[in-house]
């Protein structure tokens, strides 16, 4: 434990500074939440590889290096964001730079009818009754060090509310841009999404950074879906290849709601995303899909946890891992079916493609089932490209790199093809193709 204590001290010092800066301005319940979180984090420290959930992901390098909190708003010219936002069209977007809301870069007008979206900092300054009933309720600080660290530094992020009986076609984009100014900084954005009864909406979270920049993003997103709500949630993780990225997505679903999560992850020297879904009532559908594509010395960790608490729940998971270079990947998917969750239908698939001899994958699908009238299945595969299929393509005059690129794309795009929103689907396909072109050295047209 000796190597952990100095690190938590370091973060505590940072927190004290943070409290002096902004502490007094927050409502009392927020201050209490932060203090409880810091106390819990100090108690736990950073996880070690001795812990089963962190066995293959070492965060030791975090405790070696201090990451001061990014405090100052950093101005980025709007044009600089153009290449990564042009696909969104004129739609409204919330932009955060180093975890802090940037009104200049954001465009909230016209906000779709009935929807309210804005910065958490702004919401905490005003009437915060709604926030108080949700914030910290789903992403619990008790047993997750990164959630407690995020909560301890809670100050800004996005808050989105979809009112009851509202259907919003237009996706809402939330961008988290990291731009450390010479020194490695950290940010802890916190997002809260509240979907009212019978509502329907689409939200896209993007995490962006410049290549080679070193920083730490420790994001937490809490999503709550009321009865019959339908939410499509996307995460486009394109952090810098030197960055540390942690994202915990905590989802609480009510009766007959449908939550769909799509993710594409290509960035981060060390990136870990966790999704915890709580299917708290009957007839809930939860669909999780993701593609992770990493190369070089990157490490990508994808964790999912689905908790079926009541009857007639359905969950589907499809995760694809593409690993090149010396990259290492982790997939850990857990399905928990409680005693009362009869008639549950839970499926999970994890396929991994190793593009190089030096890539490593650890996959651990888990089923924990306490009810008998259920259908639960999981499957996991690890393999490389089928040489016969490569030969087939080559025999038809396609070069070997192009053939491999095509097949890699075909492998990864299985999840992307299931995306219903055309604009987002095209963007995801484009990002995957870009990654393949960079990694395999050969571009191809879609």
């Amino acid at each position, binding site marked *: 434990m000796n190597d952990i204590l100095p690190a938590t001290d370091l973060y505590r010092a940072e927190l004290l500074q943070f409290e002096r800066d902004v502490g007094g301005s927050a409502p009392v319940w927020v201050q209490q939440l932060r203090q409880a979180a810091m106390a819990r984090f100090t108690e736990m420290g950073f996880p070690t590889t001795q812990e089963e959930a962190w066995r293959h992901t070492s965060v030791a390098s975090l405790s070696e290096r201090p990451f001061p909190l990014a405090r100052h708003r950093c101005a980025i010219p709007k044009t600089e964001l153009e290449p990564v936002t042009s696909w969104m069209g004129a739609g409204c977007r919330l932009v955060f730079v180093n975890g802090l809301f940037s009104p200049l870069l954001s465009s909230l007008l016209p906000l779709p009818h009935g929807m309210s979206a804005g910065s958490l900092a702004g919401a905490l300054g005003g009437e915060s009754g709604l926030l108080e009933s949700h914030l910290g309720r789903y992403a619990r600080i008790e047993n997750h060090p990164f959630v407690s660290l995020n909560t301890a530094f809670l100050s800004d992020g996005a808050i989105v509310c979809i009112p009851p009986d509202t259907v919003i076609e237009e996706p809402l984009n939330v961008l988290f841009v990291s731009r450390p100014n010479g020194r490695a900084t950290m940010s802890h954005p916190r997002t809260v999404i509240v979907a009212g009864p019978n509502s329907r909406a689409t939200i896209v979270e993007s995490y962006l950074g410049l290549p080679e920049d070193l920083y730490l993003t420790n994001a937490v997103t809490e999503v709550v879906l009321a009865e019959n709500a339908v939410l499509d949630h996307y995460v486009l993780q394109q952090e810098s290849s030197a960055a540390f990225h942690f994202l915990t997505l905590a989802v609480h679903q009510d009766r007959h709601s449908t939550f769909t999560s799509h993710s594409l992850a290509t960035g981060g020297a060390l990136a870990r995303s966790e999704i915890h879904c709580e299917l708290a009532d009957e007839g809930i559908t939860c669909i999780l899909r993701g593609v992770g594509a990493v190369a070089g010395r990157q490490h990508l960790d994808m964790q999912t946890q689905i908790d079926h608490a009541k009857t007639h729940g359905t969950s589907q998971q499809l995760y694809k891992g593409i690993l090149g270079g010396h990259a290492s990947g982790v997939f850990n998917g857990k399905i928990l079916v409680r005693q009362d969750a009869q008639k549950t239908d839970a499926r999970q698939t994890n396929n991994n493609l190793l593009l190089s001899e030096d890539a490593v994958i650890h996959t651990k699908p888990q089923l924990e089932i306490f009810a008998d009238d259920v259908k639960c299945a999981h499957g996991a*595969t690890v393999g*490389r490209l089928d040489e016969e299929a490569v030969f087939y393509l080559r025999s038809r005059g396609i070069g070997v790199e192009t053939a491999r690129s095509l097949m890699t794309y075909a492998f990864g795009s299985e999840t992307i093809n299931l995306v219903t929103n055309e604009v987002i689907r095209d963007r995801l396909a484009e990002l995957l193709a870009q990654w393949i072109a960079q990694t395999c050295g050969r571009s191809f047209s879609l």
Partner: protein
Amino acid sequence: MAPTERIRDLAEQEYKYGFVTDIEAEAAPPGLNEDIIRLISAKKKEPEFMLEWRLKAYRHWLTMTEPQWANVRHPPINYQDIVYYSAPKTQKQPKSLNEVDPLLLATYRKLGIPLREQEVLAGVAVDAVFDSVSVATTFKEQLAKQGIIFCAFSEAVQQHPDLVHKHLGTVVPYSDNFFAALNTAVFSDGSFCYIPKGVRCPMELSTYFRINAPFIGQFERTLIIAEEDSYVSYLEGCTAPMRSEHQLHAAVVELRAHDRAQIRYATVQNWYPGDSAGQGGIYNFVTKRGACLGVDSKISWTQVEVGSAITWKYPSVILQGNNSIGEFYSVALTTHRQQADTGTKMIHLGRNTKSTIVSKGISTGFAQNTYRGLVKILKKASGCRNYTQCHSLLLGNRCGAHTFPSIDVQNASSQVEHEASTTRIGEDQIFYCRQRGLSAEDAVSLIVNGFCHDVFQQLPMEFAVEAQKLLNVRLEGTVG
């Protein structure tokens, strides 16, 4: 409904094989210390190296803590309450079955192991372990003609100390884990088997373990060595008498397969599982591991686990030789409040090594059944292949089935597939069978036997029959 009641009766029926044979046992006082270990070693007339090894293991064990990661619950075990040595008080070593205590023979008959009949009819050599001392070894002469050594461990230590010294602890070192260390320190007997180069063992070797004296923890040690181009099939089966005290059973099995050798190891485990309230029963904490040391070698584990209050074992294969093959076939049935945390480890070190895992878990009543497995393919082990399937069947809404597989692949040329599912027996399946005149419990029995078919196929004929019978007796009729 009448059939339902009958089914419940069947499901809740008590353990058939629970009886105690009244034979005076010569036992050491309970507790564990260096003196007890010296006593065991002295009683066994062991050479010096064995005692040293035991003491080394004991001193290492003292530094270890009991593992907590398994998905099982039990009150803490007091290791000082256990009697570590007891031997039936039959003074001289019997030379033939005629010299064996008739009471002992009667016990075996009750268990359905007629030694004589087996000797004549089945052609099986039996090394029966009664508590801790080997009682009778048959067919030894026939085996000896081919150079095969099959005897009690204590005998092997005296007759073939070089072989034992060379191989013992090479697959499961004394420092391997808490229970392996404990076993190493206090094991009293077990089986030893050596198949020389180029020999195909002409018969199925088998051994029956039985716990007899009260408050006894039995710690067997089995070592099987298959030299180049040899083949052996080994069967292990066990039932235990009824008892209200928890009993600890921590065995160690080591297999060594050299170039082109093949070892098949089959287990039917039917220790006393405790009563329907979860009282009593055996704690079965076993370390089983095989090493495919040579090229083209093969180790195959088959297990049918129906007994024990808690089963905790992971028969593993270290695939060291190129092109070697590891297999694991398992049926684990848990009823009442039984807990099973079982599975396998396949460690691929050699190139083009293959492993197959087929696991079937059946859970009824309040039982918890866990599959825990590891498939690890190291960087230099190119061209490896693994296929895993683990299926669980739930009968009743108070039981649980859990699957914790772990897959580590460190190169791109290897291919790994894993699939798992959890279901219950469908109403329509039962209906289909009943429509054709089968009773409800026959239908369940048919479906479960079909569910386990892949595994039973791997068992030698006589075991397959016994295993199916066991399942029918223990499991019939938990129609949901």
